[in-house]
């Protein structure tokens, strides 16, 4: 690396004011980014990674105080620069892209103006010239028809396109450094893959330095050179990507890597989560910040805090780094005894449909002069599936594919528009009254958002107790013991019954949601993205809990997630959903390997993983499916985005179902032999 790095953060300390006094958010954080280098700042929520970004940009709020340290940009101390100098730097030499594109773009200003704005402000460029440059910039970030797009408003663009616009806007002044704060977290995997590709290309082309803030280690592997691991406001480890991701120095990094579910064939195994949770703000432990959760901690770890010291080409803050076992091992451990799914079909769904009316439009003209057109969205369009007792069916797909609608139809929270649901041999499609009450006892649901799934004004015990009262069928004196038992079953102490949701962490709330679902002794639970909102280490414990409960109570799950790794980890079978229909279904191992539906293939190819060594050209990238759900295409639903599209047949005829193996089916016009070959090979063969 060059002697004088572009950005250098030296012993930065930031604290936030609160009623309990000053709470440290960053403690002695140091790192540097050289010209053209991509540094990943990795950490879970609450680690302080966004505070770093805000400190560099000078956007810390009034409640934050910088307690020490310096931020040097190209050798100049940002804190000492006069305000106008700083203003010239920000958005010009130093720019940023935030997580949520929709919240960042101004909804009432055309795209082109938003991209051109920095040019007019920083370079004093005339409006017309700036707009012309903006159009060129939109083209550079891979947006088609940039001139038209420049006149569009943000709501007319899909999430992926919005993020491209933000990147174009961040790059328009040709900055040296770009700070990316979780730029792909709000996007679907296929879109995320495109954005990462784009960032990678731009970086190479422009010799751009990047500070990439993320919680996703797979993304780090995909795009960064070096990694800096942040935990509770301290840098625990820093070093080249390969070192951190494959032979991590710090027990925390090792734990993180182990906790990530892998896309591998390890059925019915358990993940190895990091025990405990992040220390609460202002309650940092003495000694090493990580020692309460560290299995290697010794006496010295509890007493003194250590400095960041060099080891094997990286830097680490750990007393025991030299003597730690460094053998790289996979993410999950096998469990010896587990209950296999039984043969009896529990849930049988035939041709399920759910349409939503969008509204009516009055059209004038035509033979009837006035015609009322009804438009509708087919959120779920002819789905058939079965789930056996004790079986986990994974439902994967991107946002808007209808996964959640399907899940809610299955638990009868949404009335279906057509088709049939049979549960335990009984038709429950239109069940009401006593029959529906019985059904509710057997079928429950766990929601995604731990912040909204519990009533903030009721204690945990009251929430679980109400489910017991309605569905539990137990005598009054057993109520309290049963609440305690349910809490214990999800790994929470009994006194949590007295807590309010805001006194719990995200993972704890999700456990309470699971306990509530278990209150009626259900046979089947729909898990609607139960781990998506959780940090990696917490995610692992919740996944393990779900797996344990399944084995112990013979539960069946429909496990809905956009995260293929999580689905692959827990599911016995996987169904892949696209635009309201299932395009491939089969045993987990079969779905994870060839032959695949082209959509599944693209999804698998897009997931960034820590061990990904795929070559650049063999990656499959899908085009952006703008508003894919608003009108269902004829023929194959996937044809507008399909990289393997054959021709007109895909647009006209609904594809047949092909079955490469027992229980595995794919809905595609391509023959199985063709689907078994990698897409790149097919392309090459055509060219030859």
């Amino acid at each position: 690396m060059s002697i004088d790095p572009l950005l250098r953060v030296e012993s930065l300390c930031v604290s936030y004011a609160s009623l309990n006094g000053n709470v440290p958010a960053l403690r002695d954080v140091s790192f540097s980014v050289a010209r053209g280098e991509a540094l990943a700042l990795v950490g879970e929520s609450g680690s302080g990674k966004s505070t770093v970004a805000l400190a560099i940009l000078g956007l810390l709020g009034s409640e934050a105080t910088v307690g020490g340290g310096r931020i040097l940009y190209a050798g100049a101390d940002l804190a000492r620069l006069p305000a106008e100098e700083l203003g010239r730097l920000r958005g010009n030499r130093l720019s940023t892209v935030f997580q949520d594109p929709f919240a960042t773009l101004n909804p009432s200003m055309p795209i082109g103006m938003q991209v051109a704005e920095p040019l007019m402000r920083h370079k004093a460029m005339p409006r017309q010239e700036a707009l012309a440059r903006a159009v060129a910039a939109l083209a550079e970030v891979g947006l088609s028809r940039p001139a038209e797009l420049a006149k569009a408003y943000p709501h007319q663009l899909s999430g992926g396109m919005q993020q491209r616009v933000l990147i174009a806007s961040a790059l328009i002044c040709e900055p040296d450094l770009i700070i990316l704060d979780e730029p792909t977290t709000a996007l679907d995997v296929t879109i995320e893959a495109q954005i990462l590709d784009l960032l990678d290309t731009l970086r190479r082309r422009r010799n751009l330095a990047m500070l990439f803030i993320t919680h996703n280690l797979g993304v780090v592997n995909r795009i960064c050179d070096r990694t800096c691991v942040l935990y509770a406001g301290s840098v625990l480890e820093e070093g080249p990507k390969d070192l951190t991701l494959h032979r991590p120095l710090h027990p925390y990094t090792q734990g993180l890597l182990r906790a990530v579910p892998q896309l591998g064939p390890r059925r019915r195994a358990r993940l190895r989560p990091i025990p405990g949770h992040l220390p609460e703000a202002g309650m940092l432990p003495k000694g090493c910040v990580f020692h309460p959760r560290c299995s290697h901690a010794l006496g010295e770890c509890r007493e003194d805090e250590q400095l960041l010291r060099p080891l094997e080409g990286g830097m680490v803050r750990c007393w025991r780094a030299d003597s730690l076992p460094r053998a790289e091992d996979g993410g999950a451990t096998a469990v010896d005894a587990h209950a296999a799914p039984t043969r009896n079909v529990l849930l049988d769904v035939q041709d399920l449909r759910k349409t939503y009316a969008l509204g009516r439009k009055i059209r004038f003209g035509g033979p009837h002069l006035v015609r009322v057109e009804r438009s509708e969205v087919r959120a779920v369009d002819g789905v058939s599936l079965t789930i056996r007792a004790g079986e986990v069916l994974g439902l994967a797909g991107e946002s808007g594919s209808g996964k959640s609608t399907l899940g809610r139809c299955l638990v009868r929270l949404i009335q279906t528009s057509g088709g049939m649901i049979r549960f335990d041999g009984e038709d429950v499609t239109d069940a009401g009254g006593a029959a529906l009450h019985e059904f509710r006892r057997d079928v429950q649901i766990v929601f995604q958002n731990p912040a909204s799934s519990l009533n903030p004004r009721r204690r945990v015990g009251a929430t679980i107790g109400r489910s017991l009262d309605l569905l539990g069928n137990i005598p009054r004196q057993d109520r309290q013991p049963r609440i305690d038992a349910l809490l214990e079953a999800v790994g929470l102490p009994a006194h949590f019954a007295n807590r309010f949701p805001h006194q719990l962490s995200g993972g704890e709330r999700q456990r309470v949601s699971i306990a509530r679902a278990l209150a009626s002794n259900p046979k089947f639970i729909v898990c609607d993205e139960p781990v998506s909102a959780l940090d990696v280490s917490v995610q692992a414990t919740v996944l393990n809990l779900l797996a344990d409960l399944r084995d112990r109570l013979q539960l069946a799950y429909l496990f809905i997630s956009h995260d293929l790794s999580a689905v692959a980890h827990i599911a016995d079978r996987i169904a892949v959903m696209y635009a309201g229909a299932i395009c491939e279904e089969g045993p987990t191992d079969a779905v994870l390997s060839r032959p695949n539906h082209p959509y599944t293939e693209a999804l698998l190819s897009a997931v960034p993983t820590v061990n990904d060594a795929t070559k650049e050209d063999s990656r499959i990238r899908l085009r952006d499916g703008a508003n894919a759900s608003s009108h269902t295409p004829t023929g194959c639903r996937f044809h507008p985005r399909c990289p393997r599209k054959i021709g007109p047949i895909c647009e006209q005829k609904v594809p047949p179902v092909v079955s490469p193996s027992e229980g595995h089916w794919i809905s595609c016009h391509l023959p199985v032999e063709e689907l078994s070959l990698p897409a790149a090979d097919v392309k090459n063969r055509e060219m030859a």
Partner: protein
Amino acid sequence: MVSALVEPRPARRKWRLPVTLLVGLAITGVILVLAILAPVIAPYPFDGMNILTRLKPPSAAHWFGTDDFGRDVLSRTLIGARLSLLMGFGATFISFAIGVPLGLLSGYASRTVDEMIMRAMDVLMSFPPILLGLLILTVTPPSIWKAMVAVGIVYVPAIVRLTRSVTLEIAQEEFIQAARARDDDLLYILFREILPNAWPPLIVEAGLRVTFAILLGAAFSFLGMGAQPPSSDWGLMISDARPYLEAAPWVALAPGLAMSLTVIGINLLGDGLRMALDPRLQAGKSG
């Protein structure tokens, strides 16, 4: 007992009351006490006329001066607080008792029910408030409790709309879906799951409504449909003092200031209650 079972209770915060609440409580409390004790502490009878001391400015004998009938303004203001406050709180109670259940139902129940309730509210709202009140009052001989009902009904649509919009938002929360998934009944979901979460904006609104109700009540009094002379009501007093605004401003000023103070006090009380009742705001404060 095993030591591990002793609950490490979540650190109980000291119950800190927001300053806003304390100030609001103090002002409203003092006014309430004065209103209740008015007959005892008033220096003169509120309807005791004295032609000789007409429109006298504030003095040691008459702190707030006298009005055009020579009545003591202080005594009338103290007694007037009773009717004005009764009008304010009573009418608000009536509009909440009708409006909140309707709003909850409208925001949560089916579209048809929602449409029926909201269209009915549109009809109610399309009448100018005074006209609607007069409509209710003219049928029967005027009296203070009828004016209260009239003011209450005038404000029902506003309460329904507010409750509905809050309910619509809360109904999207996953814990409401969870309640449906356990087959809970409608009334429980409305009043036990949604309502406790809807209180904060409703309480603030209640503060505003009390003050509006006092004002509208005063307007009815002015029109001869509410408080009947010679009984005293702040609105009535201000109306009566209108011809003498230049010659004897104190006659209107005393009830006016009393009304402003009441309005401020009740608004602070509403804001403070919202802060104290919301556990999330409590949590946010002490981080």
